């Protein structure tokens, strides 16, 4: 049984003791145990680090800590050595022993296992010199990759944790907390960008004997994984943000709704909640005040629409996750009919820093209308995919090129999808767009939750629009007609176009349907579902026309519109393609150019893969 924390002195004692325990070691080895690194086997890496240390007789010189995601998921598993701040990547149980020996025994930095910067084309051993990190500003992620997610002492010591909750509960009134959040200019990070302080004020003023606080960790946007990294890497930060939120609005109970696809997040947050409870940071009379607060996790069951707040609350209540009309707004009648405030994971993760450092400091970052930072999940055809946090208003090109290192395989940038299935695409003409709520909307995209998918020249935009529509059509809950039938009809048209059966009037019908669905669907899912179609139609109309009029897919993606042929100038007549063809569509004589019979060809692309002379033409 641990001692309950009831004062600042208790927190400081824990920090001091933890600090002393750590300072007994000359080195700390932080091994990333983010989801990305876990799936590349960081568990085995960690074990090998431990066993190698003891073989080298270094157990009492270096301690191994397991942290959350360091962000560079593409090159995992990774580890950071302190105090020298050398960052090693691409670790395996095989390369660990020689690496540790070279580093600790021979005192040499093993360059070829450090981060390779694709722009400067050289290895960069020091974490702080790597552009991926240098260009970031970390508030939400300040502890990710630094504290041990499974140790509340580490959060208290390394992360300065629970000081903000102590400050709010013991020296501020709920009104003052709300005032501070308002002054910070924080806006919700779940997509809509609604001012958080204003929402909390409504929660505080709502009449009711019982109020609820909910954390939205559904993160349904396919292509987003920020919230997951925050929960898995720094769960106590979210818990602390929620304690402060509960105090501000007068809620004694909170729920965290996590999607079922994130078992590790559920596991780590459950452990952190239990830890906080043991230390008296959740439960009755926190910090000796008369404020009590506790948290419960609820797990989703695979429905995208449950990210929408009214659907999410229905799901917590154990019902079908169907959205309902607003008003009444959740702060009026939410969960179980009681006033409820619901915020996104990242929103809560900002709160401790705001209370701790003050609103003014937070408000000094960002743009005039949106303060602070935004975490983006950088993925797709990009070199360094991973999690990045930048001041709101940072230019997209800086994120893609300076932080992400540019496009994979030397290809050309075509577009980036921001805001997931509710968002739109940003083209190369617009890639200098500052990433803030208003400017993105003005360019037919939206901030959304922070998914940023980079697409190269080989991506077909019509097919991308079809992909997103297929997603929303599948996820439409079916309650309102506009969304249920509208998305279905739009999908049918797009399928027809990608199969080469499109007609010119399809484009007008598509426009008309898109506008109708946007204006008449009941919830955000339906209202935003036409966005990918509208934005691709606006920026890539010629690509649609190529599909409809010329029956060609310029990017070479839509299988029905492709045809393969052999360039007789390049063909050496080696017969490799003919042997690889599964349907014997390629015929010819050795040492003479071969030909493809298009009536038989199934467009599998095998011939193209095997041809050594680049003689196969796809168009």
């Amino acid at each position: 049984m641990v001692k309950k924390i009831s004062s600042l002195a208790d927190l400081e004692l824990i920090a001091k003791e933890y600090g002393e325990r750590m300072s007994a070691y000359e080195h700390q080895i932080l091994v990333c145990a983010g989801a990305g690194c876990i799936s590349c086997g960081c568990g085995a890496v960690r074990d090998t680090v431990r066993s190698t240390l003891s073989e080298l007789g270094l157990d009492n010189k270096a301690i191994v800590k397991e942290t959350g995601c360091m962000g560079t998921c593409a090159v995992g598993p990774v580890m950071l050595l302190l105090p020298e701040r050398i960052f090693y990547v691409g670790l395996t149980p095989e390369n660990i022993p020689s690496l540790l020996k070279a580093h600790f025994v021979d005192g040499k930095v093993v360059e070829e296992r450090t981060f390779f910067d694709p722009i400067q084309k050289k290895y960069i051993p020091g974490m702080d010199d790597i552009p991926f990190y240098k260009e970031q500003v970390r508030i939400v992620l300040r502890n990710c990759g630094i504290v041990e997610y499974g140790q509340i002492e580490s959060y208290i010591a390394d992360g300065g944790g629970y000081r903000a909750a102590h400050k709010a509960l013991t020296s501020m009134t709920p009104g003052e907390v709300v005032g501070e959040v308002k002054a910070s200019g924080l806006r919700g990070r779940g997509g809509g960008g609604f001012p958080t302080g204003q929402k909390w004020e409504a929660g505080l003023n709502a009449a009711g004997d019982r109020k609820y606080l909910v954390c939205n960790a559904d993160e349904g946007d396919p292509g987003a994984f920020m919230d997951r990294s925050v929960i898995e890497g720094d769960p106590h930060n979210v818990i602390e943000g929620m304690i402060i939120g509960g105090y501000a609005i007068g809620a004694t109970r909170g729920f965290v709704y996590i999607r079922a696809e994130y078992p590790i997040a559920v596991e780590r947050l459950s452990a952190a909640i239990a830890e906080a409870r043991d230390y008296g940071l959740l439960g009755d009379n926190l910090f000796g005040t008369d404020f009590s607060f506790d948290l419960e996790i609820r797990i989703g069951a695979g429905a995208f629409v449950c990210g929408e707040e009214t659907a999410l609350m229905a799901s917590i209540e154990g019902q079908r996750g169907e959205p309902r009309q607003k008003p009444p707004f959740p702060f009026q009648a939410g969960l179980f009919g009681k006033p409820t405030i619901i915020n996104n994971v990242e929103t809560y993760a900002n709160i401790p820093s705001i209370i701790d450092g003050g609103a003014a400091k937070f408000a000094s970052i960002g743009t005039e209308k949106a303060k602070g930072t935004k975490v983006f999940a950088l993925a797709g055809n990009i070199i360094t995919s991973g999690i990045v946090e930048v001041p709101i208003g940072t230019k997209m090109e800086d994120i893609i090129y300076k932080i992400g290192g540019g496009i994979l395989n030397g290809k050309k940038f075509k577009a980036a999808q921001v805001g997931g299935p509710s968002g739109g695409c940003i083209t190369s003409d617009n890639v200098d767009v500052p990433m803030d709520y208003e400017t993105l909307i003005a360019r037919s995209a939206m901030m959304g939750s922070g998914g940023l998918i980079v697409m190269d020249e080989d991506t077909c935009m019509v097919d991308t629009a079809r992909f997103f529509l297929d997603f929303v059509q599948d996820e439409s809950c079916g309650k309102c007609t506009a969304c249920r039938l509208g998305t279905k009809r739009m999908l049918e048209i797009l399928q027809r176009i990608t199969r080469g059966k499109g007609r010119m009037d399809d484009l007008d019908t598509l426009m008309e349907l898109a506008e109708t669905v946007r204006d008449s669907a009941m919830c955000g899912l339906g209202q935003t579902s036409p966005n990918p179609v509208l934005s691709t139609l606006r920026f890539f109309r010629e690509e649609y026309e190529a599909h409809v009029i010329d029956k060609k897919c310029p990017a070479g993606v839509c299988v029905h519109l492709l045809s393969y042929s052999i360039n007789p100038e390049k063909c050496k007549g080696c017969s490799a393609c003919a042997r690889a063809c599964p349907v014997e569509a390629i015929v010819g004589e050795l040492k003479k150019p071969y030909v493809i019979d298009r009536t038989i060809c199934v467009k599998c692309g095998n011939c193209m893969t095997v041809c050594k002379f680049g003689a196969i033409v796809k168009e």
Partner: protein
Amino acid sequence: MSETRQECRFCAGGCGEQAKYAELDTVIESYKDREGCLIMVLHAAQEIFGYLPIELQTYIADKLMIPLSEVYGVVSFYSFFSMKECGKHTLRVCLGTACYVRGGMRLIEHIKEKLNVEVGGTTADKTFTFEVARCIGACGLAPAIMIDDEVYKHVTPKYLDEILAGY
């Protein structure tokens, strides 16, 4: 999490029905007084029994004293719940945006051919139930697949063969 599963909860026949119902009863008991616990109970039931046949739904409805229609309504709404018997492992290929852009479709075709199974179906030997996921949050590692709780990154058809051979 995965450890408890391997012991017995997911096993296809080792432990008798009775033991499973007893386990479910304990779960229901622990949740009974909490509002809106149906989904959590269904999660537990699916983990214990592997799927949610109508008899099991009736049992849960009786225990929680709610109409069967409500239980069925919830089970049929959420894609995570299955009313069909599943294979020993759930194989989910991600077709989220990142994985789609980086070749998730190729994996789908490959599995269909290799395991002779359609999306949503179970292989003849009941080893795998094959499903498509909409983003499993491993976009930085696209294309990704998930077998039970295990995520595999940068999967190619060749690598997929190696992974499947391990099950």
